[in-house]
């Protein structure tokens, strides 16, 4: 059975489990909204001054929210003791890894769909270049999902993983976060700059590197 089909089987199972347990989606979305509210109260400004905060608030909220869902990403396997079992019944660890990446990506996309309009509304901002922001968000979410899944998997059996995950994940995602903030800032302020494509290229390279390295590292780490 090919990797794609196995990945789909595992992703479908994860979606079933997530839909049944319910609390994860609810908690994650509530946390995202709360983040935006806290930031909007914290940076209470109006007009052009408020717009300056939009990129930072948007990307930091996405980063914080991803930690919430990442901490529960491997919970179904940990609770039932199926982690080794699934890796040993499928053709290697790749299907499990990619199914978790896809699940995290779905979570992040859902959060994104909720908080982007909220941030724009609270900070009274408009996007001059919607396509570019969507591309940046897409690349950012893919990078977060791939690196985040790797970190979540490596820390699945570790005590204090709630503390360790941000400590490891946030520095790793720094280049992606900086590039995402820069692209969004340029799109919000409407400044035409050649730097835009450079930042997008950086995000693309980051994603490509980690899409190759992460499954390999995951495979190595899950071997006995």
């Amino acid at each position: 059975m090919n990797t794609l089909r196995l990945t789909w089987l595992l992703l479908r199972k994860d979606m079933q489990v997530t839909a049944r347990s319910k609390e994860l989606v609810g908690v994650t979305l509530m946390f995202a909204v709360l983040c935006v509210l806290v930031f909007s109260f914290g940076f209470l400004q109006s007009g052009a001054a408020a717009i300056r905060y939009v990129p930072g608030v948007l990307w930091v909220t996405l980063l914080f929210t991803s930690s919430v869902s990442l901490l529960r990403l491997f919970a179904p396997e940990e609770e039932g003791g199926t982690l080794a079992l699934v890796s040993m019944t499928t053709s290697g660890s790749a299907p499990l890894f990619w199914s978790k990446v896809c699940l995290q990506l779905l979570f992040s996309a859902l959060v994104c769909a909720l908080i982007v309009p909220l941030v724009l509304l609270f900070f009274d901002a408009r996007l001059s270049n919607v396509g570019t922001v969507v591309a940046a968000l897409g690349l950012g979410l893919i990078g977060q999902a791939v690196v985040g899944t790797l970190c979540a998997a490596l820390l699945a059996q570790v005590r204090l993983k709630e503390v360790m995950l941000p400590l490891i994940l946030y520095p790793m995602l720094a280049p992606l976060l900086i590039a995402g903030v820069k692209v969004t800032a340029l799109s919000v302020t409407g400044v035409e700059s050649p730097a835009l494509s450079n930042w997008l290229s950086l995000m693309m390279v980051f994603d490509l590197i980690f899409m190759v390295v992460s499954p390999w590292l995951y495979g190595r780490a899950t071997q006995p």
Partner: protein
Amino acid sequence: MTSAVVLRASALGWAAQGRFILLDLDLEMRAGQWTAISGANGAGKTTLLQILSGRRAPTRGHVTLHGATLSSLAVHEIGGRIAMLEHQPGLYLDLSGRENLTLLNALCGGQIDAAEELLAQVGLPPTSWEQRVRLYSRGMRQRAAMARVVGSSADVWLLDEPATGLDQPGRELLTTLIRQATAKGISVLMVTHDIEMMHKADRRLCLEQGQLQPVQERV
């Protein structure tokens, strides 16, 4: 007639924090043979099963499956030949018993349609098939986990305390399932503290000071 050796552990050693829990341990598992291992808490029984199943690498020695060392085999090849029942059920708690077996069988490329048959075989009532495993009692989870092992195409079963949580009919059923498996040539290794289950096995060993000793010799 002596049947073929399926799984062999040679000079196996496993150390934790500088202390050897298993030391120069040798074990042969033959096709159709039911072996039971007992031993004190912390003697290394579960560790031994984890090493034999390829889930843990030994500090010393090696394990061969049909003559090939486990380290030379792909993880999914080992998983296809060795089925393991651990303390945790190896089931997704938020899926039903039927969904779990269907998923796991699909992942193995095995008997996708046999989920209901397997659940009936381990004595789970049809009313529980669509229930989430999270709602199962300890004994029901153990039965569902056993269904997973029975449904696998493995020729080695490694069972860690399989009778835990089972009522008397459940234990009898477990014995029947193991007997049916050994009749098909499956080699079964069971770790247990249960004297009654120990006596039903073909071969009884005790894990003591890192090595396996025949129980009869000790008596």
